[in-house]
């Protein structure tokens, strides 16, 4: 039922589901083992935040979405500058890309 042959290999959804169940069971088992020396209500309960003072309010701690993958974007800055610069948002530019692509295709197909 859940097996798909692609001609090169196959895909079995049942096997994956069994894998996830086994993996989840193993993780839960590991978690259940726990640490023997844990004591509730002592300093062990405190959040470890790179050795810094833990702020009371967690709100300011998150990385905002526009800073996520900052390194990726920084590394590819020339590429992104060009790509984002292409999206000028001017209506005639949007239309221009379309007309240029159609004209290019028409020219090539009539020449070839």
């Amino acid at each position: 039922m859940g097996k798909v042959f692609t001609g090169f290999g196959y895909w079995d959804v049942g096997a994956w589901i069994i894998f996830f169940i086994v993996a989840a069971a193993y993780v839960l088992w590991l978690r259940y083992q726990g640490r023997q020396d844990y004591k509730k209500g002592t300093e062990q309960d405190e959040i470890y935040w790179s050795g810094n003072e833990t702020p009371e309010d967690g709100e300011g701690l998150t990385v905002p979405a526009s800073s996520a993958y900052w390194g990726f974007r920084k590394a590819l800055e020339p590429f992104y500058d060009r790509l984002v610069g292409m999206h000028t948002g001017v209506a005639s530019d949007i239309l221009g890309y379309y007309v240029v692509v159609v004209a290019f295709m028409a020219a090539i197909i009539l020449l070839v």
Partner: protein
Amino acid sequence: MIGNAPFFVVGVLFMMALVGIFMSRNLIKIAIAVTILGSSVNLFLVSLGYRAGGSVPIHFLAGEGEVMVLPTPQAMTLTAIVIALAVTALLLSLIMHVWRHYGTIDVDEVRRLRG
């Protein structure tokens, strides 16, 4: 040669419309150019159906002639005109709203959505 004249006109109108769309910065003028584009296509359709010396393609008005012009492109043109009318009306009303919100109808300044 003279039979192809409508197609030359179609080509010229089509190019004029495209040039108009890209060269004007005023949104109203762009809308006018889009209308011209529609008209050039309609002219193309009507000229496709023309047969030299043909009569009207209506059963009881055709007269003695053996040749009739094709009725299908005329039906297509009527449909296309109605559609173009609706789109033009919508374009103009959208431009009206753009003016209301942005205070300008310069195409280069209506670009809050970008990137």
